[in-house]
């Protein structure tokens, strides 16, 4: 399929994107029987800017979709840190998220032969075609100790800290969005490390210095 930019059209539109509190999926309003394109971008950067044509008339999002074609049923990384998914008219009950701590935008599609027209979306007051999905993660740091002595009554420091997270971050997380500072260095946290910590009661850092976990991603709020 080929993708083409189309300006806002009152007939082909998609708007009022939100997360359904019951299903936890994305939902929006659009004319019945119309296909849509859901685009996931880094937190705080809706995809409208990517669809807008530049001075030469070419749209970054359209070009990206023509190079890495999005499909129905799953998210495709069309450009670095940007994922897209086609939602057919027949899909009901909303669209699943591809992770949190990011922003989602929806565009109306019109299929004409082997071409998809991607229509510009419009914001009207609080009714908008994009939605930031922040996430709150609880981080816990704890010194690891062990007991020793003949009656195992003596507690000693192992030299390790345990770092645990209340939940995972999902797709769209970029290594280094979360990191920790210890001494004079900053160590990035990979998604693997966070997932492991969630699944295994924490990960470990060997130090006797103080550790501070920080976020570079405005969509991830550490609590």
């Amino acid at each position, binding site marked *: 399929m080929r993708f083409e930019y189309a300006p806002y059209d009152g007939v082909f539109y998609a708007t009022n994107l939100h997360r359904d509190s019951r299903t936890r999926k994305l939902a929006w309003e659009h004319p019945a029987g119309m296909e849509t394109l859901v685009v996931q971008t880094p937190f705080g950067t809706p995809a409208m800017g990517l669809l807008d044509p530049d001075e030469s008339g070419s749209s970054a999002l359209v070009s990206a979709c023509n190079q890495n074609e999005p499909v129905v049923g799953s998210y495709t990384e069309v450009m670095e840190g940007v994922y897209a998914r086609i939602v057919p008219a027949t899909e009901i009950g909303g669209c699943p998220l591809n992770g949190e701590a990011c922003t989602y935008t929806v565009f109306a599609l019109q299929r004409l032969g082997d071409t998809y027209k991607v229509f510009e979306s419009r914001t009207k007051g609080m009714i908008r075609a994009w939605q930031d999905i922040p996430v709150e993660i609880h981080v816990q740091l704890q010194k*690891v100790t062990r007991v020793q002595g003949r009656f195992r009554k003596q507690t000693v420091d*192992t*030299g*390790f800290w*345990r*770092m645990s997270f209340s939940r995972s971050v999902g797709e769209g997380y970029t*290594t*280094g969005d979360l990191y*920790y500072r*210890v*001494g004079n*260095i900053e*160590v*990035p*946290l*990979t998604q*693997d*490390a966070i997932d*492991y910590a969630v699944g*295994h009661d924490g*990960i*470990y*850092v*060997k*130090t006797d210095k103080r550790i501070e976990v920080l976020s570079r991603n405005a969509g991830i709020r550490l609590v």
Partner: protein
Amino acid sequence: MMCATSVPPLKAGRFNMSAEITTAELIEYYARRLESIDRDSLGAVHGKEPYFPMLVLFLGEESMKGYESISRNLLLAWPQFREELKFIGVKSPSESPEFVKLEHGQQSPMTTDEVAKVLDELDDARNHFKDYTSDLLYYVLDATSIQTAEDLHAWISTIEAVKDELDIYENDIMQMLFVLFDEGKRRRRQSRRIRNAMSEYCEGGANERYRMFLLSNRLSTSKLLHGWDSHYRICASLMALSNNDDTNIADTLFHDGVATVSYVHDEKPVNDIGQVVVRSLVDYLGGDDEISYVLDFEDMSLAQRLGFNDHGTLSLLDDYVEKQLVPLLPTPEQINLFPRWTSDDFGDISGYAADDLDNLTMGTWSAVLEGLVNGILERVRTDGMRRKQWSDEYKRMLSEEFKVGELVSLALHSDDIRKMFRNASEPTATGNVLEYAKRKMRVLLSSNKEIAELFADAIDDQARYSNEFREVWKELCRSTLELHEVHDTNLVAFYQGKVRNYLDRHGFELKRSFRDVSSLDELRKFLFDAIDDIIQSDPVFTASYEDEQESRLSRDVHAQTAQQYIRQKLTGENLETYLQVNLSLNSTPLKSVLLKEGTKLSENLKHDLSPSTYYYDTGYGNAVEVLNVHDVLSQNILTDEGR
């Protein structure tokens, strides 16, 4: 001598293909440099200087052809008077003459007022003449087109008309007329008519105002000279001799009546030497098969020559990784602060293999490495200076490694070359983590698409540049075909040897600098500088006329000594009179030698020649002239025929 082609230079596409540089231009440069060096040697910048203001008038279009040669010869002796010597043409014989301005090699019409202004300029106090009480007027008349005595008289009347028109008083000037006299066989009748007409001026007859020099192209030995080159030189020498603070010489030369000269000239063969030097230099820089050599793309060493090491990364970038990225790697202490999936204490984990460390730290190690490289890539992306430096350095490397022909053919394999950047072999992650990091960073940097493109573009640029350079160089080589071969085998062998000696010592360095040439102007400057350097490399290049001969002739055991050789050239049968006469020329009021004073030759000649010989210091050590003035009596030129 064949001229080959060249090693490749550095930067891309700045040769203007419509412009060119020729061997003639290089030889001219060589000759001018020697002139200037000679003037600065022996502690004397100039020889004798003109004493009075002077103006040279060329009578007729034919005569004006001599302007360039005469002015050039005068300026050879008096270069510092370039703006003060004046030259004017008179178009045709007339009572109201039309003037032509002759200045800096250009001709343009001028009014009588403008001529009068030129006369005023002669006496400008800012000039450097020693005496302004008289102006010297020299008239040059090429008599080739003169058919009758009346034609000659018409020109002599025109001289008077010029003076009338400009209101010049006889008492304020001294005058001299040079008549260049064509006596080819088809002009016998006209010759006799003019000789007879000229005889009226002998012994001060019809004209007591100025000296007439009759300079024929038929010499006393009956040889006929083609062209007026030596006549122009004689005119210039007579002007120099006569514009003199030595009143005896000036009086002798400005005495009325008709005279002619016997004359011989010899000079250091500067142009021939220049030709040998330039050809040898161009041949050397051109190399052997530089231009036609085609790249063998199947050659296994090609990747290495393109700067790739055994692991398929660019050595140039490896250096950068070593200097810029390696210092940013985490220290062993910092690695020990990485997160781990277990609290089991394994001691120092910085000595782990990369795979094991990555496994233990859940990809943190790889992420840190990638973050470092991405940071550097971002920096490179925005650092135009760095990109240019890499590009220039790579082009320089290419120019040292590949011949011109090879570089041109590299452009034909552009896609294959781009693939080579993706051929870097991944390091094994089982080695020491820091060693692995260094190699991994090399691979990440070298195979980065944007950086690979930068280097591939440099190859394209260099190939295009080589193609343009090849055309310019071919043109330079082609221009050597327009030169006449130097036939003096002694001279050719001697100077080829001198240039070879220079190239043995400085050739490598010279070729290296040659590769930095990036435009036609730079090529010209490079070749001029190389010529300067060659001139300075051996004293023989700047040696005076006689020293040069002595050095060169001494190589041939059968040759005469330089002194004998020179003496023979300047005396005896070589000293020919520029007029065939009846009876003999009895009176020789002036015997002179024009040369640079203070040289060995001047001392030797003073020892050998008659004590009455007058020596004029030209300040120019690359040439010597012997000029004797003979009074011509009417009986010497009067004929019965053709009257």
